[in-house]
């Protein structure tokens, strides 16, 4: 549906460096990256709102590189909603319909149905200033959907919302995607949003695409240490590889599956895959390390323990009962274990 080929843009202090990407018809695709990585620029390029220095944009098999935004049949939803403040909710939702050949009475029926579907049935006469953040974002989504676009472009749609509205809007987005069959391209800096909503994703850093794959692979098999760290795989340990073995954090592990052929690289494991327990708790084929708890940190309802293993800190998500029961405290000697299948390897040069 969307094919970006070699997008190049040279701006003061930033270069979008030959970005290529393929979003399949009807899929929910997430483009992830930190602030300033160029993800919104890619989105605006798809919308036709920025001028490219090189490359090509195809939407639905049609080369739209030289076309203005209004001829691309895409709708854009920004994180700050960008609702038209001088128009009512219904006028906002109906704004683009006339340009898509939708008759006014039919458009109004559809707009009202969309507002109902998104839980805004009684709000059609209100002005955007009187709506909550979640309501504004749903109006922006309704406005985008009301034009019956081929592609919906979402720029961090959840980031400006309070936590209690986020889950609600995630469900709304999922339903809207399932009901409309449109292709959704979302940019986000939050990998949880991508994990919840998208089927495939890509990660961009400093205008360079790092990885494009299924969401599962990006989370389980990140291509670079940056992607690993970005997606929460925070245990990235320098490793050496020799024969059928791999050594990191002061231990050597033999007989690991899918070992790479390089001599040096990184072994990585997600904190939630690392278990703190007694050595006898772990199956015989698990990787087991010993270390001392350096610090414990609370992250919402969960706790993480940073354990120093031969000078390398390894983070593990731990059961709060262990911490609150006093069985785990800074200085405690512990054993860490994780399944061999959860260990991921990345080359040093990546």
């Amino acid at each position: 549906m969307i094919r970006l080929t070699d997008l190049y843009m040279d701006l003061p202090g930033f270069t979008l460096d030959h970005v290529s990407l393929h979003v399949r018809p009807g899929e929910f695709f997430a483009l992830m990256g930190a602030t300033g990585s160029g993800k919104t620029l890619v989105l605006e390029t798809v919308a036709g709102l920025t001028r490219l220095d090189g490359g090509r944009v195809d939407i639905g098999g049609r080369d739209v590189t030289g076309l203005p935004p209004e001829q691309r049949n895409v709708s854009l939803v920004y994180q700050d909603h960008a609702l038209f403040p001088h128009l009512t909710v219904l006028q906002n939702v109906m704004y683009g319909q006339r340009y898509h050949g939708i008759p006014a009475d039919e458009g109004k029926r559809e707009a009202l149905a969309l507002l109902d579907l998104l839980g805004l049935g009684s709000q059609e006469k209100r002005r955007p200033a009187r709506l909550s953040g979640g309501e504004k974002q749903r109006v922006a989504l309704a406005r985008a959907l009301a034009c019956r676009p081929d592609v919906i472009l979402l720029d961090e749609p959840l980031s400006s919302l309070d936590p209690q509205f986020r889950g609600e809007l995630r469900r709304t987005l999922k339903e809207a995607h399932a009901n409309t069959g449109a292709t959704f391209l979302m940019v986000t800096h939050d990998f949880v949003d991508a994990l919840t909503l998208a089927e495939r994703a890509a990660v961009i850093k400093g205008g360079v695409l790092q990885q494009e794959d299924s969401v599962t692979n990006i989370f389980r098999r990140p291509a670079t240490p940056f992607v690993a760290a970005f997606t929460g795989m925070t245990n990235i340990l320098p490793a050496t590889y020799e024969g059928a073995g791999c050594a990191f954090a002061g231990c050597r592990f033999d007989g690991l599956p899918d070992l790479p052929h390089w001599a040096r690289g990184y072994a990585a494991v997600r904190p939630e895959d690392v278990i703190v327990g007694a050595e006898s708790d772990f199956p015989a084929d698990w990787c087991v390390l010993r270390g001392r708890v350096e610090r414990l940190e609370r992250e919402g309802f969960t706790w993480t323990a940073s354990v120093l293993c031969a000078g390398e800190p390894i983070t593990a998500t731990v059961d709060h009962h262990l911490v609150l029961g006093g069985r785990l405290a800074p200085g405690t000697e512990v054993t860490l274990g994780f399944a061999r299948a959860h260990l991921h390897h990345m080359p040093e040069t990546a």
Partner: protein
Amino acid sequence: MALSALLVLVFIALPLATMLTAPTWEVLRKTLADKEVLDSVWLSMTTAATAAGIAFLFGTPLAYILARNAFPGKKLVESLVDLPIMIPHPVVGIALLSLTSPRIWFGQALQSMGIEFMGTRTGIVTVLVFVGMPFYINAAKSGIESIPTRLEKVSRSLGAGAGATFFRITLPLCWRYMLVGMIMCMARAISEFGAIIIVAYHPMIAPVLMYERFTAYGLKFSQPVAVILILVSMLFFLLLRTLSLPKEKE
């Protein structure tokens, strides 16, 4: 602080109040019946309004370009726009007169099209546009800058072209700034004297008539003309200012 503020207000109000209260009712009544005075006030108001209208039509695209684009030489263009505010007004008159002189190609071209500049309404309006345009462009530019670019981007992505986006999003959101710009442009135009006296002594706008009455008959005869111009202008600007105030909406 309050004392300083009061001092400034007195400084502005005192000369005006003195002038406004100087003419007797009898003199004021006679002046109001004087066709030459009424014609000059009417000419001042209509030429100033025409200048503001022209500033709106031709200044808006430039204000939009300056508000929405970064380009090499932008500071230079902005300085050029502000230039009429800084240069002495007789210089403006002389410059425009030189440009439209039949001795140079531009003046000859105008003459061949039947456009007379010296001593005509056309000449007066041209001068007023020249001196008032910066006020309009700067106000309109501020208005356009106050609208988030994303609103226009969303409008474009929803299918509206650049023109439709301007008329459905940009203009409704910044027309108050533009109106204030037009008021400022018109106010500046009504007060213009230095350039007009060079380009068009006749037909006489109110400031030129005041000057003529002052030099020919003295202060007593120029004051009532000033009072009438001030009162008419104040009434008009109050009306426009009221229109430009934002209304509280749901």
